[in-house]
């Protein structure tokens, strides 16, 4: 498995994709922060900027599409999986090796982006009155977000392996994560009140629900535990399903 992951890291680091992605994100952050600094009122501080970060952590659910794609690298489009299975690499190793490599790449990129954001915020804005508390809250919010990102990654990874193209997989992923979690179910329950208990049960399991609760109530130990249960359920469930189907998949 380590050899497999070593190869994946070699491939990713020899692409322009990660550097380009990082450049766009970091550039975007810098631009937004400079604009905010120029137009900021007297209350703007590092604490405010760090707190704002907690509000946008759900974006990570969509960024995993990019980091997974970086590692998966359009295997079906380029037909490169045949080189791996023909050599006798176990399909479970191929599936899990790419998933773990994608998770590590995501964590590294996420760490770089967060560090850059906080460093720039510290340079451009003065410290507030409750920096310690804000950083603790940010840490807790990250503990809520991390398992949900992993869950999203597990789901998208499964879709990449089971569907023919990355674009189709991305569309299905956004439909499952974004549309289901974006009030569509609420709409259903309005028109079909009898199904409300079922819809509520589904909503509890969605990857976006803990993020909604983070926005409305702030981080807590209970929310962290809930987020880990939801995230791990998605990760393990989708990985198990992906492995079962990929085992018999035709590699054309």
């Amino acid at each position: 498995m380590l050899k497999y992951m070593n190869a994946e890291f070699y491939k990713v680091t020899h692409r322009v994709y990660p550097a380009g992605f990082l450049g766009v994100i970091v550039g975007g952050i810098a631009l937004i922060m400079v604009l905010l600094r120029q137009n900021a009122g007297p209350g703007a501080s590092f604490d405010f900027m760090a707190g704002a970060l907690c509000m946008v952590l759900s974006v990570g659910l969509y960024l995993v599409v990019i980091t997974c794609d970086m590692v998966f690298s359009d295997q079906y489009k380029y037909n490169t999986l045949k080189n791996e299975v023909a050599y006798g690499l176990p399909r479970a190793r191929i599936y899990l090796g790419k998933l773990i490599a994608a998770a590590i790449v995501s964590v590294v990129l996420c760490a770089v982006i967060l560090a850059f954001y906080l460093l720039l915020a510290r340079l451009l804005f003065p410290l507030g009155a409750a920096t310690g508390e804000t950083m603790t809250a940010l840490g807790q919010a990250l503990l809520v977000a991390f398992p949900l990102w992993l869950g999203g990654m597990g789901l998208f990874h499964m879709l990449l392996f089971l569907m023919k193209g990355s674009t189709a997989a991305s569309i299905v992923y956004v439909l499952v994560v974004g549309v289901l979690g974006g009030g569509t179910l609420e709409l259903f329950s309005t028109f079909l009140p009898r199904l409300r208990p079922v819809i509520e049960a589904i909503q509890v399991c969605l990857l976006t629900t803990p993020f909604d609760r983070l926005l409305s109530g702030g981080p807590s130990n209970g929310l962290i535990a809930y987020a880990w249960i939801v995230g791990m359920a998605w990760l393990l469930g989708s990985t198990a399903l992906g492995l079962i189907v990929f085992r018999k998949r035709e590699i054309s």
Partner: protein
Amino acid sequence: MAENILVTRGLTKRYGAALAVDHADITLPKGEIYGLVGRNGAGKTTIIRMVASQTVPTSGEVELFGATGERDLEKARSRTGAMVEIPSFYPYLTARENLEYYRRQRGIAGARVVEDALEQVGLTDTGKKKFKTFSLGMKQRLGLALALMNRPELLLLDEPINGLDPEGIVEFRNLLLELNRQYQTTILISSHILSELQNLATCYGFIDKGRMLEQLTAVQLAEKCRDCLELRVNDAPRAAAMLERELGLRDFEILPGGAIRLYEGLSEPQKVTRLLVEQGIALSGMEHRGANLEDYFLSLIGGVHHA
């Protein structure tokens, strides 16, 4: 008895209602070059893909290096090299980077392996050129380099000379013959270019509509393709006895249906006809026959078919 590297038993692949491969039995002994001969869609690629784990057989069994279970087969496949259909690599990586990626993935020791493989196929001077800019011939060479990188004991090659220029074909043939001679590499190769296959193969499998029609060695094929005079007579046993006694011809065979295939005395057919007429044997036809692999294959499947 020779060790068998690859054995398939009743190998079958069905896609919906279509039967791509129908109970194919192949036996490939160590050190042989096995030419898989068949038309487009006959099932050659599907057989190779099943051996290379790219497709799962509907039924039947693949045995590689004596291993049959899924896990043992996975291990056994690390002793093979495969090039199936058009070689596929990451377009944004160079030849070296692509091979280095697979070297790391497969845990093949020594970075020199990549250079050696590129050297073997004549791709050392591609530099920073990305795979996406390669010609078909270069892609084929890189595919072969990947197949050779782990010094395989069994090479699975599906239409490997497609896209190679004449010089490349000769180099490729010499390389395979050298690998086979020097390392006893066993090779399973399919190709449309039957004349090229005839330069390489030591045994053949003929496949049509998913069914394995016949397997024979190159010696047996040469025997069957020998130049001969085919005589259609009303009394083949008596005619044969006559030819042997009067003209001293012993190298012949009597075919079912009353024909005689005569493998000697071909330069003087008039002597044969004179003798038969003199002895009152009715000769309804006489034909000079000689076949190559292509002729033999066509006769086996019943002539040229057009899709």
